[in-house]
């Protein structure tokens, strides 16, 4: 186990280094740059020159790359060009927002997805099954931003069931401990803030959950159907085991393996979905940060750190998924 993890970590470092190099050169080959974005329409050529020099963009690209590598190795990600804050602070603020959203979405996707998929398989070919297939097809194919705007239009405009955007009501003055507002409210006993944050979370989380939810339902359904056809289920049935035991112990547990793999992959994909969801709901997480950093001024330091973060999250999630196989499936452990 230790060997597996350490090998993975070495892979992680190599992957990240290669990725960072790629990103460094890719970002700098894009047209436009931070100088123009920062200065706007009013800058004189002198100011432009001054800023280019101050940012070090007048030096050869390999000098810039060397400086960049040194900073990355020493853990200095620099400051955001746009806001002047340390990159770690900028990302530290946005990260919890996305985590809160993604966790809520995953809870919805798993909490509804596995039971629904299981039920659809149990009622194969009947109304429930067919309905599930159609609904999941819609869920997969509907673009996130479209669904987001649709939900907003229905539920926040004519009838104000949910708030249209943001993470918490303006002026609520909640205390920020972890950056996860629902949790913070519980920790500080500002229960109104928790409720308010949860209320703001419903639409974005549901919007973000649709695709993983639909995929989890389908995978669960297919996987359960496979397992139901296995000989050992027939054997278990034949030897007179109770139905509940068969389902829990033999069907579900065996059917869960591909589902867990899917959940792992979807967690990574959630980050991509978050970009759109956060845009629609003015969420202020990593997704918003990515778009702001690209369109609002080529914020190289933030973008570089974000891509590093995304890579690490993706790799770690997949590591966790691999490790969880060992828990779910004893056969993997033996190997």
């Amino acid at each position, binding site marked *: 186990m230790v060997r597996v993890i350490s090998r993975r970590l070495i892979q992680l470092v190599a992957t990240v280094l290669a990725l960072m190099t790629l990103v460094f050169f890719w970002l700098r080959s894009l047209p436009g740059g931070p100088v123009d974005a920062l200065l706007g329409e009013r800058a004189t050529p002198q100011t432009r020159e*001054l800023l280019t020099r101050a940012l070090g963009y007048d030096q050869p690209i390999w000098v810039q790359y060397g400086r960049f590598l040194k900073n990355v190795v020493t853990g200095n990600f620099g400051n955001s060009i746009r806001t002047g804050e340390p990159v770690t602070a900028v990302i530290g603020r946005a990260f919890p927002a996305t985590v809160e959203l993604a966790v809520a979405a995953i809870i919805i996707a798993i909490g509804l997805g596995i039971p629904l998929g299981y039920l659809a398989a149990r009622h194969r070919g009947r109304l429930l099954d067919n309905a599930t297939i159609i609904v999941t097809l819609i869920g997969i194919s509907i673009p996130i931003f479209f669904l987001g705007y649709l939900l907003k239009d229905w539920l926040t405009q004519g009838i104000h069931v949910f*708030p249209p*955007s943001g993470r918490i009501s303006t*002026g609520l003055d909640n*205390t920020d401990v972890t950056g996860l507002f629902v949790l913070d409210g519980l920790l500080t006993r500002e229960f109104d803030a928790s409720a308010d944050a949860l209320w703001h979370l419903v639409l974005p989380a549901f919007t973000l959950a649709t695709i993983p939810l639909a995929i989890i339902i389908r995978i669960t359904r297919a996987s359960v159907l496979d397992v139901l056809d296995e000989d050992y289920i027939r054997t278990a049935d034949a030897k007179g085991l109770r139905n509940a035991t068969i389902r829990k112990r033999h069907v579900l547990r065996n059917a869960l393996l591909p589902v867990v793999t899917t959940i792992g992959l979807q967690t990574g994909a959630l980050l991509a979905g978050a970009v759109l969801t956060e845009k629609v709901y003015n969420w202020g997480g990593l997704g918003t940060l990515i778009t*702001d950093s690209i369109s609002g001024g080529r914020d190289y330091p933030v973008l570089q750190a974000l891509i590093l973060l995304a890579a690490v999250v993706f790799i770690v999630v997949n590591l966790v998924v691999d490790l969880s196989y060992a828990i779910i499936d004893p056969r993997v452990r033996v190997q």
Partner: protein
Amino acid sequence: MQAIRRRAVIAAGVVAALSIGVAGCAKSDRDSGTEVKSTGGTFIFAGAGDPKNFDPIFNDDGESFRPIRQLYDTLVTHKPGTADLTGGLAESWENDPTGKVWTFKLRQGVKFHDGTALDATAVCANFDRWYNMKGEAAQSQMIYYTDIFGGFAGSPDALYDNCKASDAATAVLTLKKYKGAFPGAFALTAFSIASPAALKQYDADTVTQNGDSFAYSSFANEHPTGTGAFTFGGWNKATGEITLNRNPDYWGDKAKVDKMIIKVIKDENTRKQELRAGTVQAIDFPAPADRKALASEGYKVLDRPAFNILYLGINQKNNPKLKDLRVRQAIAYALNRAQLVQTKGPGGSAVADEFLPNTVLGYATDVQKYAYDVAKAKQLLADAGATGLTLNFYYPTEVSRPYMPNPQEIFTVLANDLQAAGIKVNGVPRPWNGGFKDDVQQFGKQDLHILGWTGDYNDPGNFVGTFFGRGKVEFGDQAMTEMFDAIGKADATVDQSAKKAAFEQVNRDLATKWLPAVPIWHAPPAVVTTKNVAGLVPSPLTAEQFNTVSLTK
């Protein structure tokens, strides 16, 4: 089975215990003191972007200036709802005959938010601070200062000479030479007066560099200290809220609301939805298409008086035919600007005949107008031997500016007009921050392009001087010396009535003799509020002061 269940119970127990434990540790920061029941309430304004910081001199964008205008005052300011100058921190100001010495009579009894007094020494300390700013990092962020004051200590272009407090209420600013931008430029938000004590205490001049970017001081981020109608209540970046509290000791009209929150909502559509949901009371820059709907739903759509310009730029460098005035005139005649204003213009917009709005000094009432006339356009092209002309028309994408809410649509209409007159148009879309500005303003790849400008202060130099006062890649011809000279001379005229006449002539010549671009429209951006908001006076300079705003039930 039993084992699994037991494990689950233990896990749940641990989680519960942890939460309770942590709950004991994490303390609420909320103000638990007895809050005085608000008489004025909280005014929530949806802004369109993050501010950079709150030190006026390091900023140049509207989203930073919005809160800064509430926190600080300038020496000279504008009468509400106009671009006319009136006293700010200075009750009066005068210029000596050489145009180099400015004497400000300061308002008495004005205090900064930290309790220190605003006097002539404090005013001069600000001018000294700007002039003596050290380090490229800091200097490169002082865009308005570089533009207006030419440079810093040691630079031969620096305009600033000295500032002396002849008594507590009189500040005398001496410049090295006359500059036409004043007194209008004294009203620039970037030149707001800050408390020298706070500037020092919070290390305002320290702009540090880290890697390839900078960090600002705690003055700029946490302790901005001015004389404004609101004091700084904090910037919650996690929720995108800037809180401003009523300044009970304000020297002018004290704010009617107790608190103002600027909530950053970048998406235009989301701003509208928040307004409709009643969670914000005012939004900036509504989409032109939403104006009618919002007005009919009972929201107040307040138009700002026009103070901007959209133009069709002509680059004379790549295509020699464009050097011929007749070809440029043909382009002007080919455009049906009246129809463009009707179909694509935001409400309140009007066809522009000059490159500055009519509220600005030097606007001439008798310039040559190019009314839509396709036949004439074709005739002029034929006369110039330019039939079958093909032009590369650059337009920006991924951007919406107050003067240009929908560049793509504007391009389509203009291109169709040109095609109808027999000019082939090759449209080149480029992202605003990803090539458009480079291609147009640095490399001059285009033949035609659309771009515009929102005025900063009431001076013709800020409009025509900015565009045509010197050789610019954008318009391709470095050799239009007659035009540069005329504008330079007009700008250097000290006597205001002579200056007015000079700029009127410049505007006439721009239309008849030079035509380096075609003015398209003035399109004032709107601000929309809910019904219960009263007293918001829209400013042509987007320089609203919110102390006059009140909320009714």
